[in-house]
């Protein structure tokens, strides 16, 4: 593969920084870093790691950045918004998709995709963290459950506790009350997942859900959330093999389309 044919997309999110290497034949490799360091440094590290993993000798020069920290990636040839990149990435993976639900650490967004892969409409969560990955993280801490085990524990529940979906702070106090009352953790976890899905369904409803529906972002790794979401939306969900790199993939596709 000629080095100059390879481009990269970088998604600087609030929790993860991901990099995707793209060649005209497909995805060469990727890397995901959970990073709190400065955006550009993390982006360089993610890009170097993606290159090292697949033995790609030189770091691509045509790089497009997306994500809330995209402005910090000064070596990018241009920036592209999360909404546009999610639509582009989801369309490339699933050309039949017309809706992408991007469920990240701090942002939940629904994007309607046009048949040619462009973002046609979108809606995002507002200021409250209810409905975001950060909310689940907070609840995991309160319940003293590892984040990655939350979904499976919730799936095993045979009942659900009521948890508010309006406000992350109120939800936290409700969860603490449930703990004090001695409710099983699994019931509380099931209720938490319902609350998160309530918010996601509300956001999706603002643009109208059109089949097929792709779910991306870190929350797409949570099986309980996906099961609840699928049941509430009443449509089967398409999940990419690695849902956390779809934004970076969309950015890489923009890089591929950029004039060299």
């Amino acid at each position: 593969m000629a080095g100059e044919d390879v481009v990269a997309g970088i998604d600087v999110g609030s929790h993860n920084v991901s990099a995707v290497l793209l060649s005209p034949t497909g995805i060469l490799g990727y890397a995901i870093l959970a990073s709190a360091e400065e955006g550009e440094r993390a982006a360089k590290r993610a890009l170097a790691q993606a290159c090292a993993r697949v033995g790609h000798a030189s770091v691509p020069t045509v790089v497009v950045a997306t994500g809330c920290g995209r402005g910090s990636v000064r070596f990018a040839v241009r920036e592209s918004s999360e909404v546009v990149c999610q639509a582009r990435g989801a369309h490339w993976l699933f050309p039949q998709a017309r809706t992408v639900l991007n469920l990240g650490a701090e942002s939940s967004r629904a994007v309607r995709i046009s048949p040619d892969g462009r973002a046609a409409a979108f809606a995002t969560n507002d200021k409250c963290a209810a409905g975001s990955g950060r909310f689940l993280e907070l609840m995991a801490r309160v319940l003293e459950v590892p984040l990655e085990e939350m979904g499976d524990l919730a799936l095993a529940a045979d009942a659900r506790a009521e948890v508010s979906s309006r406000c992350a702070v109120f939800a936290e106090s409700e969860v603490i009350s449930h703990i004090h009352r001695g409710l099983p953790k699994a019931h509380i976890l099931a209720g938490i997942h319902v609350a998160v899905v309530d918010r996601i369904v509300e956001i999706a409803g603002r643009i109208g859900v059109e089949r097929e529906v792709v779910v991306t972002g870190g929350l797409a790794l949570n099986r309980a959330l996906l099961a609840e979401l699928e049941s509430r939306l009443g449509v089967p969900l398409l999940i990419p093999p690695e849902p956390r790199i779809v934004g970076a993939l969309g950015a890489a596709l923009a890089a591929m389309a950029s004039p060299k």
Partner: protein
Amino acid sequence: MEPSFDRYRERRHEEARAWKERTGGKVVGLFCCDVPEELIHAAGMLPVRLLGEHEDTSEVDIHFPVNVCPYPKACFDQALKGQYDYLDGLVVPNVCDMVRAMFGSWQINFSLPFLYFLEVPQKISSQGIDFFTVELGRFRGALEDFGGHPIADDTLRQAIRLFNADRELLRQLSALRVTAGLPASSVQDAVLSSMVLPKEQHLELMKEALAEAATAPPADGLPLFLSASMLDESDFVRLIEECGGHIVADDMPAGTRYFQADVDEDDPNQLRALARRYLEDIPCPRKMLPEAHLARLLDMLEASGARGTIIHNLRACDCHLYEYPYFKKELEARGLPVLFFRGEETATEREQQRADIEAFIEIIAG
């Protein structure tokens, strides 16, 4: 041009205090676009639109809950902090629940020598014009009593001419958004300063601003239309500009609504002419049906060449919120994309708004 107008909004309290000291005149505060400022000016007083500071509303939070309109709240906060200590009077129009609440709040907390509740009809009709004409006569009488002298017809006529002249220059400046790419934030700063400065002073500033605007580098952002409830600072418009948007036309109280219509100078019944201008000619969802409001909005939008519309609804401004679903449906049916915000004019929401505006612009630009 831009920094000077920006400064006047920031310096509004100092400017009003300086005017008072210089002239010995009375300063009368007011809310909303429905109060005929010409009558206050003709009474020899300085009308000033109340404007808030939204980043720190620590004083008012003990008086009002968080889920009410932040605009009058922020104004009241300024008063509680003593910033409006120079006011001799206040006019509260009967426009919405929260502005109405300002009447009692001021009555309880401050002893203003002049506190007037202006009855404004709830819809545009010939009976409404008759009613408002009579009400403006009552208002004129109250100002005469407070000022201690009658308002001569000639003085009122001069005031009407002066305010019309300022509106004409604001219209010329606003037109430069389309013809010369003048940033809309400059126009909004000019409007906000007109709301708080003596009109004679503002008129002179406008002449300078127009001369300077002709030589300013043009904006090159995506042409957009902005429909908003009260935005009493230009930060949101500036944010749109930072994201690559260029507001070529707007329908908002601290924007086109302030200057788009004149008072008929030839009408021998001056109060009726004022009633017509303030009730009939200023679009606002609290007094007109969504269909009529949309028709006016579409006229401006289509003439402007805007490729999308941003609607900013000040949180808890129900009047504007009610018409949003209809506006969205009708605009999108015409192929005009819509981006909607419910905001509070605080910096905490800016980054979320920035992300959405950038995405909206990127989608339209393709």
